């Protein structure tokens, strides 16, 4: 994924966290995920489809997600992604480390302003 700079995440792991957090609310299919992140972030974050599907597959392989056959809101066949127990644990760990990182960021930025 790193081959093409246009497809790069905000920072490593950001896309995964957003997907995990979104799916924690309820199981969703791909299109719904994109829409959800877009709405919740007030259009500030736009998920690239080109990154979304490889990321979903990666998390499936790591056992953070499960996919099941389902239908979309429009009644078309699709796959619904659901968080697993290990996905929840992973999310919680990641959130803690992200918060620490943000705290660090803020302090560094605050110090620079003085």
């Amino acid at each position, binding site marked *: 994924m790193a081959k093409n700079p246009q497809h790069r995440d905000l920072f490593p792991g950001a896309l995964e966290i957003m997907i995990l957090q979104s799916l924690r609310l309820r199981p969703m299919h791909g*299109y719904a995920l994109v829409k959800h992140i877009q709405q919740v972030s007030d259009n500030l974050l736009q998920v690239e489809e080109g990154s979304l599907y490889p990321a979903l597959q990666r998390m*499936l392989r790591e056992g953070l997600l499960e996919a099941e056959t389902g239908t979309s809101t429009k009644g078309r066949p*699709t*796959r619904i992604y659901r968080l697993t127990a290990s996905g929840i644990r992973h999310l919680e760990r990641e959130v803690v480390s992200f918060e620490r990182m943000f705290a660090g960021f803020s302090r560094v930025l605050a110090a620079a302003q003085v």
Partner: protein
Amino acid sequence: MPIFSRFFSKSRRYDDISVSIQEHIDERVDELVQQGIPREKAEKAARRQFGNLTLLHERSREVWQWQRLESLLIDLKHILRRLRRSPGFAITVVLTLAIGIGANTAVFSVLNSVLLRPLPYPEPQQLVSLHLDAPGAPGLAEFRSELRLSASMFFTFSKHNNVFQSMGIWGPGTASITGIAQPEQVGTAMVSGGVLETLNVPALAGQWLTPADQDTHALGRVMLSYGYWQRRFGGDPGVIGRTISVDSQPRVIAGVMPRGFKVVNYDFDLLVPMALDPAKEQLAGFAYRGIARLRPGVGVGEANADLSRLLGVWMDSWSNGPGTDPHWYTRWKIAPHLQPLKDLVVGPIKTVLWVVMATIGVVMLIACTNVANLLLVRADARQQELAVRSALGAGRWRIARELLLESVTLGLIGGAAGVAVAWAGLRLLAQIGPTDLPRLSEISLDARSIAFTLVLSVLSGLFFGAIPVLRYLPSRQRQPLLGAMRTASVSRDRQRGRNLLVTAQVAMALVLLIGAVLMIRTFLAMRNVDPGFTDPASLQTMRLAISENLVSDPRTVIRIQNSIQEKLAALPGASSAGFVASVPMSGAEPSWDQITIEGKTDENDNAPMRLFNYVSPGYFLTAGTHLVAGRDFTWAEIYSVLPIGIVSESLARELWGSPQAAIGKRFREYPSMPWHEVVGVVQDVRENGVDQISPATVYWPSLMAIDPSASQKLGAWRTVFFAIRSNRAGTQAFINEMQQAVWQVNSSLPVADISTEQEIYGQSMARTAFTLVMLAIAGSMALALGILGIYGVISYAVSQRTREIGIRMALGAKKTELIWMFVRSALTFTGIGTAIGLGAAAVLMRLMQTLLFGISPLDPLTFAAVPVVLVAAAALASYLPARRTARINPVEALRAE
């Protein structure tokens, strides 16, 4: 099983991805349509937003793959599919490689088993053979490259050395075994104390010979070889402690040595203690081969120095009897020259094997070059495809990888087939290989040979694959998409690449052919040597020993031998018979000593050593060794023990100037011996093989006075070869009749080593014949491959230049000129290749010098004739495809494509 389930669920995963993505696009389209965009446009926009869908699919799937491996597998699938589509090409390449790699694997297996693998003894690097040089011992030094050890040397060395853990001496012998089944003659290894300790291989059953077995005054026990134990005793473990009759003496069996155990390279039946008596030993008696195990950390140089010191001790402690000078041997300039035991075992076959390996390696190179040429042609045809792929964004490395993968795949398939070829080749080798090939029984396809095959397959694949890759990768810049085939005839550059390969092939083929022809000339030169006997195929030989325990009186021995000889000569189809202590090339070498010439030499002079042989009347007639002057012995002379002798022609010329002058002259071995009169001179006999010089030989009567003190004490030569001239020689019926004839005289006499002189003669040429066959095979393969290469290149050039030929013809070129144009180009690179090959051959053939006989490594005839033949073959190979130009119709040629 997560890996397997992952594999099995993969296609479902891929479906999931497609379904998800498709649904996503559909929703997006719906969304855009709702925003009022026409469906068609909406679909396009949605897809654009997704970017490269195939790539997205691929990247999503990659998550589930061992990416590199799978793309490799896909490439492999394509390659195999492509190979199936052109079976002619695939079969040609795989067969070429299978033969090339197979031949290499076979020869490598031999090389590995014989030369590289350590000897089958514990810590074999400590083992040395006690090789002594004696450049000052004339006669002997020219005939044999070493001086063997005497028993007194063994006593001095083993007692006083500071460098060996253990040492011993041994020699091959024979013994009659009676009382089990039919009387039987077996091969014995006579060993001193220390031999088993030095080789250090434990007994399979029972125990080793002990120092008590070496006691002169007791009858020591014996040990059996595994083979003899199986053959004669059916592997019965109860045989230990049993008594067998060895040369009519009862001997207890102490133990059995394990399978494959040999004393150095000698495959014995029975291990018999020498039981040397220090009280009876003299300085002389240089008959034994010495082996030793060095102490850890001791080098060969240190050991040599220690033995040099001990040679002085040896001369101080022993003598050759009263009145002799013990330091007389300083004239022989004896010097220890220890060698790793392996060098002794491997011996002269080393050069042969390396030459054959190098030869086969060159054939492999030629084969690879041919395959590379084929691949070039194939890559030519695929150039457009590769260019299209390159234009669509395939990386250079990706394309190179695929091309290389294809060639390595071909290499590996060829290698796998090659293992089968090698296996068959090794079986064949066991049939035609020289019987003197040491460690023949140890040859096998082991892990190292298989690893060699694998490495060779991959390397050759990379080698012949790299050539088209190097040629075609840069072509990207030249925009071949335009279809170079149509406009240009063929790029000169590309044709030059192929010509270069064929030039190299011609050069390599020439070197091999010259090697093969030199071997053929060597073989012919050896065949032309008069070996000192005639028509070996009708000369039947057998060995027979009459032990002292069976018949003690020497006169009786001679009578028995005489009556056997008469019975043999009277067999149907037999014309004459005789016996001798050693038939030519049997390796028996009865003994060596100096002789003194009446009125000529001083008894204490450093006269050359002469080979002694002992003959019966009629032997020379039977063998076809013709008398140059004088006459043969008569039976009356033998029985009256007259002091007479026969000498070889070279000895007569050396001592008396001419064979005629030698008749009537007298000589003796030691001062108390009566002077023996020369009654006959016989032609020289190649005693040790046709490529070895004939030793100056003295033939004594088979019965003679032996004791200097009592002239009535007689000695008869007890182990003799009988020779029978018969047109039925070699047939089983004749052999049975010979056996019967012997048993009519004495039923407890075993007969051994029944063969025709042809077989013995053939064995002495076996090494040359083997080298010849291998080089001839390699040379003809190289010639065939080279010719094929030239043929291929010219016929491809003709097919590629059809258009150009059409234009030339339309412009008025004559057909013969066009043919000549192609032949000339073939002759140009053949000429260059020949020149390079001649230069290389001149250098390389010197390495083969030791294998040649009677011919110079730069033999002008060979160096002139082989290139002529090669150039003629090349002209023919290029003329045949070039002739096709004559059939080209200019109109059709121009209209084609």
